[in-house]
């Protein structure tokens, strides 16, 4: 892997994180927001593997990425269950329906 490849992978990481955050911000559908979160985490995973590669400790990078996968999968599952619940309760997936915490 030469320098240019590293730069390219880093740009892919940034791109994925950016697309994810953008999706979370502009979507008005809970499932779409969760998909945005997933895209963002893909970028983070790639960043861990890249960091393992450039620091020469691939094992540590991979093991941390594995932890992120575990956590992220649980987050996705719980978030999806919440979305299902919201849909049942409020009849919509629009997060703007969830403003009841604000009084």
């Amino acid at each position, binding site marked *: 892997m030469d320098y240019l490849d590293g730069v390219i992978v880093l740009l892919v990481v940034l791109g994925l994180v950016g697309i994810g*955050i953008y999706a*979370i*911000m502009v979507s008005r559908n809970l499932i779409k927001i969760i998909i945005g979160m997933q895209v963002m985490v893909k970028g983070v995973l790639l960043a861990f593997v890249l960091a393992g590669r450039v620091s020469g400790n691939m094992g540590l990078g991979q093991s941390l990425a594995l932890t992120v996968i575990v956590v992220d999968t649980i987050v996705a599952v719980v978030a999806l269950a919440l979305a299902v619940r919201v849909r049942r309760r409020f009849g919509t997936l629009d997060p*703007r329906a*969830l*403003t009841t*915490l*604000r009084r």
Partner: protein
Amino acid sequence: MVNGWLLLPIGVPWLGCLAVWLVGDRKPRLQHTLAVIFSVLAGATGLALIPWSSQRATLLLPLGGVFDDFRLATDGLSVFLTVVATVIGSLAVIFSVDYMHGEHSLGRYYAFVLFFIGSMSGLVLTTSLLWMFVFWELTALCSYALIAFHNDDPKAVRGGVKALIMTQLGGLGLLFGALWLYAYTGSYDINQFLGNPNVVPPAVLSWMAFGFLIAAAAKSAQFPFQTWLPDAMEAPTPVSALIHAATMVNAGVYLLARFYPAFEAVPGWRLAVMIVGMLSALLAALMALVAFDLKRVLAYSTVSQLGFMVYAVGAGGVFASQFHLMSHSVFKALLFLGAGAVIHGLGTRDMRQMGGLRQSMPFTHAVFMLGALALAGIPILNGFWSKELILEAGLGHGNPAWIAWLMILSTGLTAAYTVRMVSLVFYGNGSKHHHEAHDAGMAMRTALLPLAAGTLSTWLLLGPFYTALKSSLPYHTLELGTVWEEVVKVAGSPEWGMTLGVGMEILREPSTYLVLCVVIVGLVAWLGRSRLASLIATFKGVEKAAQASFGFEAINEAVVQAVQKTGEALRVTQTGYLAWNVFAILLGWLVVLILTMLGRAS
């Protein structure tokens, strides 16, 4: 895994917790049975540790380098507190069979009680400060959940939240202490630290010392955090007996005693500890003198007695404080469980509606009297011996005499409020509830009897307890008088001889008689209060202040109000829309990035 059995006092109750919870609330009988079985098993494992109280058995579970390893070790102090937690825990569970009969959500109740017993054992057995913090917080969680057990009662929920928040303040002190220790030594090992406290620079050491003092004060409901304990009395009474009298509130005293060798030399620390203990003992005793809720009186009395223990640690009497801890957990558990029997029989906690109960509840009356006399410090009962030791420690060692005198005054007040409580509940004219009252049931008696026997006899353990602590705590200097050494030679057996010797020494000490006089003055003052009316009238102001908890409740309220107002004001910033929240996060990220860039550029 050598010494895996050390995990039993933690594991057995936790297993029981899981089992009771899994059984579900539809089978209350099975829940009662399982809870009793597991708690008694836990008590047995606790008692089985006693042979290891004078030697060191260690257990180490390696958990990788990032976190500290999971380490347990036995010594006199930890085994003693494990025994207290598991045995009194099992008695409280047995008592609950009657007390909680027919209640809802038994699974939640028993699960948290058992979880608490295991956590408390872990708290005292571990030798890693990080794990101590973890268990410390677990006990706080259980305490919160059990105070707010009747979660449809707003008072109970408020009490629970209050206890949780105030003990969290203390948790912060402990956490900072632990992190400082780690930052300077690279390990959380307590014994390594106690052996050589100077690895930490003096300034940091004193920060740690006062951080731990805050932690202990918050956990043990000491001045200025004493207000949470009375409000915690919304908990079911066996919980009050177990958590808020016999075990969890002792964790603060345990912390101070455990770290005494390290902080002893920190300038001003010992004085601060003594003053905290003295103020708690004195103010709480005054509040107990004017309260009318039976459980609140006992709660104030607990704060006051814990004040005695904290004072003893500050005065250099680590052994005296631990010995009083033992006596106190036995007789206060007895008093609380006795009060539970009274409350269960009558359905009220107001002492003005009691009275004359000694005919309708003879058994409860008998055991409650034993506990009350021990609390007042009447000779032969365990409270007398341990309180004497504390006051002697306070008068010796070059400690400030004015604090010692105020402590002796608190002893007199203790006697006075005890007599007041007993006479209001059991003597005098019976009220309308009189004939409806029923005496304690079988399970209640099973729990009360061992405690009553303990109140009569635990002071005999003075010698063995001292030997165990002495031989297993290398960093503590435990001091007793010198007379016992001679008696040991005469008696042959060193341990029992010491009990005899220390007993004799206590009896020879002039301060003993002084304190006894104060106690008797306290007793007589209450009995003859009608004649002293004019004198009492001059103290009206004190009474008013005591009823208002000396203004601490007002300070609490003010803090709560301020926080709530700030929250209301900040509500404007919360639109409730996810997009704007993420946008704010993004803006924050941008600010942090720009700041880092600027920092790098300069």
